[in-house]
């Protein structure tokens, strides 16, 4: 069982839709991460929040908009996505320099 909960598990959206991915953790870690993973590829870092502040943005297009409302929640707002954005989106949390705890991911399909 994971202590990082991601919703929804699956999402299908059109290119004109606006949707949000949600991640919740109650592990007390102050760093939270969004990764994107294409099939048969390693996870690629998108964003890092540290103490609810965006600390790393890996040159992600503006159609992806992260938000960290508090230390337990992390959102990823999606708007005007492209079919090539279809992927597994993973949320993770962890203490500095220690292991990461991942959610089960949201499998996103953009039509």
């Amino acid at each position, binding site marked *: 069982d*994971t202590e*990082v909960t*991601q919703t929804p598990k699956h999402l299908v959206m059109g290119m004109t839709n606006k949707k949000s991915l949600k991640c919740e953790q109650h592990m007390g870690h102050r*760093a939270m*991460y969004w990764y994107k993973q294409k099939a*048969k*590829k*390693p*996870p690629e*870092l998108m964003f*890092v929040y540290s103490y609810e502040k965006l600390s*790393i943005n890996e040159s992600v297009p503006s159609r992806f908009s992260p938000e960290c409302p508090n230390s337990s929640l992390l959102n990823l707002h999606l708007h005007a996505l492209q079919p090539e954005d279809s992927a*597994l989106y*993973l949320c*993770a949390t962890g203490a*500095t*320099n*220690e*292991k*990461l*705890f*991942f*959610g*089960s*991911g949201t*499998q996103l399909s953009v039509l």
Partner: protein
Amino acid sequence: SQQGEEDPQALSIQEGENATMNCSYKTSINNLQWYRQNSGRGLVHLILIRSNEREKHSGRLRVTLDTSKKSSSLLITASRAADTASYFCALLPGGSYIPTFGRGTSLIVHP
């Protein structure tokens, strides 16, 4: 590159056999982590080995680290069909708190 390179990319064995996968890297590291991922799911942390450690065990898993050769290996002994998954090494470079993932090894264990 701060990304680990894993070898082999794919491994197919029979139940009961041992599986060995390797991770090589080029930079100095703080620690190296191994993760497992079942298809379409989140990553699960297996073992973290620090740069001043040479070997760690966890159940049927054994991880070694050779910092002089900049390489690590993950050994799964007496493999089971349930071990079928992708295995990723993740480096924590010195001076960074963000793990970066290697391309992974796809392991298939035949019953």
